[in-house]
């Protein structure tokens, strides 16, 4: 790979990291997820700076074609995150349902109370 490719990769990782940082500052992303993505950006940057790390790892795991190890790790990382997000979404759906039910029931109780007060007042 040419040094231009490495520069480009580092550039993308940098832009990515800055984007995450900006989103955290604007309060649009929780720090928990920000740390995860910042970590990913740093990992990409380190690998672009020292690409031989991947070759070393591939040797260690007896992977013939080093880039495939890179892809494997990247896909595993994405799968892990997606699975985690599914869990989060499921839990949130449950909580939203409960909130909707509670708010509807409370409103009914409130209206019922008002109605009964009115009747007593008459």
């Amino acid at each position: 790979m040419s040094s231009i490719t490495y520069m480009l990769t580092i550039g993308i990782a940098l832009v990515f990291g800055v984007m995450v940082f900006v989103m955290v500052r604007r309060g649009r992303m929780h720090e928990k997820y920000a740390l995860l993505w910042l970590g990913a950006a740093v990992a990409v940057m380190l690998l672009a700076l020292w690409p031989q790390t991947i070759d070393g790892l591939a040797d260690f795991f007896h992977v013939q074609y080093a880039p495939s190890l890179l892809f494997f790790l990247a896909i595993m990382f994405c799968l892990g995150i997606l699975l985690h997000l599914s869990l989060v979404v499921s839990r949130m759906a449950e909580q939203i349902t409960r909130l909707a039910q509670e708010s509807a029931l409370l409103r009914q109780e409130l209206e019922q109370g008002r109605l009964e007060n009115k009747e007593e007042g008459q």
Partner: protein
Amino acid sequence: MGKSYLQSDPRVIAVVPALNEEKSVGEVARGLIKAGIDVVVINDGSTDHTSEVAREAGAYVVDLPFNLGIGGAVQTGFRFALRGGYDVAIQVDGDGQHDPASIAALIGPIAEGKADMVLGSRFLGESPFKGTFLRRIGMVIFSGMISLIYGGRLTDTTSGYRAINRDLIALFADKYPSDYPEVEVLAQLAFINKRIVEVPVVMRERSHGSSSITLSRSAFYMLKVSLAIFKNIRLGGSTHV
């Protein structure tokens, strides 16, 4: 086990989930009130006058802020019943298929302390209900797993006309499946010792709207029900919650 609920005059509430049923919900509510029980209509995000019509008919109305689907709506009704201290909750569709004349039959086994849940079956005894061919195949596929578990003892697992006692009101208020809960909840109950009894009920062909059970959906929900069964199986040990 809990105490028995033998009582001559249980407090009964009908839980009526309704989504855009302004044409039928009023009549349904009046019919139930006339049968001598309280009615709570759960308006599941209707865009028509379901809420007003139900109020005018004399029902309690709980307006959900947005559509939760049938499971979430019915569960809201059970939570209402739990707070109101009701002894029996009967689920009744808002589209007018369920004849209030069957209410007494549904309450009976619970009032006698013989059942925790009573299912209204279209296929026990004499009933004019046929349904379309596709729908019937759908129901067979849909409920196949449950039929297996219950050894064919239950004839109509998709019936939405059913009654539950205090125990189950409390249980369902806390935990109830979201879509197509009629079948899935039977999977939930299959592995805890709850007494389910079927009684014949009369159902009319629906006057408005269309059934939500189709063949492809049935297949999908059969897989979902399999998962629900898997989820509720307790490996070894006691079958009590």
